[in-house]
């Protein structure tokens, strides 16, 4: 925050600055004010591995923020910035601040993430229209040539998902490093098959001079980072997702990406609110999401449902659905470091605020952690029914899920990350557009690399299909 800015500040700006900087004053914020971000979270109070009390405090702050119905005083609005993840200026302000298509499209995080409860998925009415926000940032049509229409994912178990992705990314990087060392020492090319936690990611060919050929990779970016979030699997971390979403949906711009360090301005979107959300509040939102309990398997069921679900569970494996929808992936550690190890500039990185700016959230302190099973090696088994890998999901005959026209961040239009099925019993509708109302419909829509399983499923009788349905509907988000 600079005095250079203040030279040209209007009264409103100065007033806001005074309010923000007066956070030590307990009476500066009153409940009737039109701000929901009452006091910025003081990041310096949360350092190192947090105690349970600190965790609870920060989670509570995160929950407030996730539910907050943001206002213009909070920074809602981005009249001169687009929804792009890279700070991008508009040429002119849009006519309407809110728009169901190009955004702003929500008042609160919870406006969309609310089924069956806060942090959950969204109804078709809460679909988001994903545009990169560079060209044609403003569009007033749902025509798929302008954006990809996506249903809202739930966030339950998101902390575990990110931890899995971090460990897998580290695994793959280690394998690459070992192969590089081997190629250099033997002066011979090395081919390696990449595998982490039982998931294959194709091959690398490594030359003796350290050059890595990635053309045979499968389902992962060429930098070998498992990006576990979004339907497409293109977002690295909850922190990156949070910053993207705050800007896209609310026009609230995080200082760690849109602030003066990277843009030269503390009001990049020119809505007269400076430094709209700072690292402490982003951290609170990250922790709240990371701490959400993973979905569970419903057990309080009538006997006939239990029996059907057991049969359906076996069928699920027999159809080879579990080749992608893996029942669980093993996790070595429940310690969630924030900032995380894989983010790039524009999302807070380890040590960026000094060592005291690094925090560790031990998710083992969460009550739900005791419900996780462990394998014989003592690793937690995360029952996500997914593989955190991308697959082709449509083909020329079965193209229902190939309905997007725009690739996203280098990922082709008919390629999506395996949907994690945990919680699927609580998160209808289905498909990345949320336009499939039943599980039968979404199973039938599987093409591409899932085509063989889907074709086998089609040949099942109605009773067996019903059993699979019964099984999948035991995978729920507890309320």
């Amino acid at each position, binding site marked *: 925050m600079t*005095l250079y800015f203040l030279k040209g500040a209007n009264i409103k700006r100065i007033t806001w600055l005074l309010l923000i900087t007066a956070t030590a004053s307990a009476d500066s914020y009153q409940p009737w004010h039109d701000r929901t971000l009452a006091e910025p979270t003081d990041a310096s109070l949360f350092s190192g591995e947090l105690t349970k009390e600190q965790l609870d405090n920060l989670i509570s702050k995160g929950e407030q923020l996730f539910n907050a119905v943001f206002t213009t005083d909070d920074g809602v609005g981005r009249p001169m910035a687009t929804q792009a993840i890279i700070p991008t200026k508009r040429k002119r302000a849009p006519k309407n601040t809110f728009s169901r298509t190009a955004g702003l499209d929500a008042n609160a995080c919870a406006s969309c993430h609310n089924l069956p409860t806060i942090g959950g998925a969204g109804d078709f009415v809460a679909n988001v229209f994903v545009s990169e926000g560079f060209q044609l940032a403003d569009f007033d049509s749902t025509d798929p040539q302008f954006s990809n229409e996506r249903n809202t994912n739930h966030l339950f178990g998101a902390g575990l998902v990110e931890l899995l992705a971090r460990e897998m990314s580290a695994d793959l990087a280690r394998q690459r490093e070992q192969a590089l060392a081997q190629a250099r020492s033997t002066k011979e090319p090395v081919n390696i098959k990449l595998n982490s936690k039982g998931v294959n990611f194709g091959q690398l060919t490594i030359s003796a001079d350290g050059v890595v050929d990635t053309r045979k990779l499968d389902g992962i970016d060429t930098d070998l980072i498992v990006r576990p979030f979004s339907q497409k699997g293109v977002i690295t971390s909850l922190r990156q997702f949070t910053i993207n979403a705050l800007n896209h949906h609310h026009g609230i711009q995080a200082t760690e990406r849109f602030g003066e360090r990277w843009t030269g301005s503390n009001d990049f979107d020119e809505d007269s609110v400076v430094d709209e959300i700072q690292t402490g509040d982003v951290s609170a939102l990250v922790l709240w999401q990371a701490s959400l309990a993973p979905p569970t398997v419903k057990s309080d069921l009538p006997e006939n449902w239990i029996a059907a679900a057991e049969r359906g569970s076996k069928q699920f494996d027999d159809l080879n659905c579990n080749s992608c929808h893996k029942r669980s992936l093993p996790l070595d550690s429940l310690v969630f470091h924030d900032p995380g190890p894989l983010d790039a*500039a524009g999302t807070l*990185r380890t040590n960026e605020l000094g060592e005291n700016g690094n925090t560790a959230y031990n998710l083992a302190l969460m009550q739900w952690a005791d419900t996780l099973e462990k394998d014989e090696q003592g690793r937690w088994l995360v029952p996500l029914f997914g593989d955190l890998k991308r697959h082709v999901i449509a083909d020329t005959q079965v193209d229902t899920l190939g309905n997007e026209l725009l690739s996203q961040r*280098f990922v082709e239009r008919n390629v999506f990350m395996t949907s994690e099925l945990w919680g699927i019993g609580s998160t209808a509708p289905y498909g990345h557009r949320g336009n499939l109302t039943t599980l039968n419909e979404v199973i039938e829509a599987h093409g591409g690399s899932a085509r063989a399983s889907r074709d086998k499923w089609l040949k099942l009788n109605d009773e067996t299909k019903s059993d699979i349905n019964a099984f999948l509907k035991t995978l729920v988000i507890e309320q």
Partner: protein
Amino acid sequence: MTFTVRGLLTGLTIVCCLSPITASAETNGDHAAFLGDVPKYQEEALQAGINHAYAGPWEYFVGGGLATFDCNADRLPDVFIAGGVNESALYVNQSSTGGALKFERQNSPVTNITRVTGAYPINLDNDQWTDLVVLRVGENRLLRGGPDCRFSNANVSFGFDGGGAWTTAFSANFNENDSHPTLAFGNYVDRTAPGSPWGTCDDNILLRPQVDESASHGVRYHDPITLSPGHCALSMLFTDWNKSGRDALRITNDRHYHRGGEEQLWDLYSGRYPRLYTRADGWQSLVIWGMGIAEGDLNADGFPEYVLTSMGDTKIQTVDVVQASEEQRPVYEDIAYQLGATAHRPYSGDDLKPSTGWHAELADVNNDGLLDLFIAKGNVEQMSDFARYDPDNLLLGNHDGRFVEHGETAGIALNRRGRGASISDFNADGLLDLIVVNREEPVSLFRHTGFYSEHGTRLGGNWLAIELNQPKTNRHALGARLAIKTGNKTQVREVQLGGGHASGQLGFIHVGLGVAERATVRIQWPDGEWSAAYRLFANHFAVISRGDEHVSYWYPEKPQEN
């Protein structure tokens, strides 16, 4: 900032003053505050094993360059440094990734030679090893590269007459479909001419390749074309100034010795005898103490801007796009003042006398996606009308399009007389290091250790380093143009050899990406053919080979863990 506002915002003021970056910017009233990352450089030449000085009498008041290139195929930049009356020196890079810099001098009678003023790396014979063009007071040398940084004298085998001039500038390009480069040598004062040194500038020469399969290396350079008049060239650069796909030769000249001279632009269209652009073509007379040239496309319009160093104010020239593209008229405007980059006197100390600028180079040293400008500075020798303490400049590109000086904050403001230089990533960590050759004083080697913050050194913006390969000829793709797209922004880089002050480099092309974590890159290869779009993830060394639609990544060797 007014006193009133400061008084009202005590808390804010404290925050601001905690940051050396903000405070430093605000105390300089010449320009807007710079709020981005300031690199933290650490001088460690001696610790790294480089102990070398450029020295000598009058002939060595100018020159003092170096070549930065990879001579042993490990993809780390090695350096060959001019010594003047001292022997030149080849230092092989042994730095560990991200660690302290380390070089080992490789001695050889071929590379340990005196009377060297500068050097440029180049591949003359299209083999896998980079060669060297060595500029000298006396016979210039072509050194043919071999394995493990071994070189051999190759003047004879290339049919090259090194002459006896005082050579201070060089540039090379691949003309149209030539299989070998065209070479241009810039000469300074003709010391043998009557009345020397004043008004006796030597001519420059151009050597087109003569392909000859019976020659040792398939090419001879035995038929020089004189570029006359010469006006005491101190830097030259082949450049596609008007996006025509055809290079001209830009020369900056030292007014101290020429009489009636000026800056020059040669039209070298193949098949015609070279001719100078004149007033009739729109070329306007500019008379400066021209010392160095840096080219960069500051506004990404495809038309390059030129930084010209001088005694006094630095020039930044931008072309009149309409006249350039529609009428091929080279009409330039100086925008250095508007950009805050005149750098006309020392930014620290109390000496109000003008600066003396030498090597200039545009590069993104803070990876914010904006080009920064380095200028080596230093008094010629004992010129009392010019500043004695004249630290090198590091002008950081700001979001308002201007530059802001941060040489002192960055730690490069030494009391040495800079000459040639190179900005290169010596330890393969994505941060651009800096080496400066100083007159009569040790070479400065600045390791980029990260960025200042109130919490200590921190990481900076995202980056890419891109290596281009062509399979048979012009292996380094001289003349290729890279368009690096992140969001709506496109940055342009061009692979060139020449300019600076007696210093040139080949190797990875570095691009800062700011907060973009990926980029789409297209290459316009030297013959004008565009590549398909390559999709690259940030913070990687990418290797792009012509004809291969797939990009590969190079990973530097990981340092041994203790």
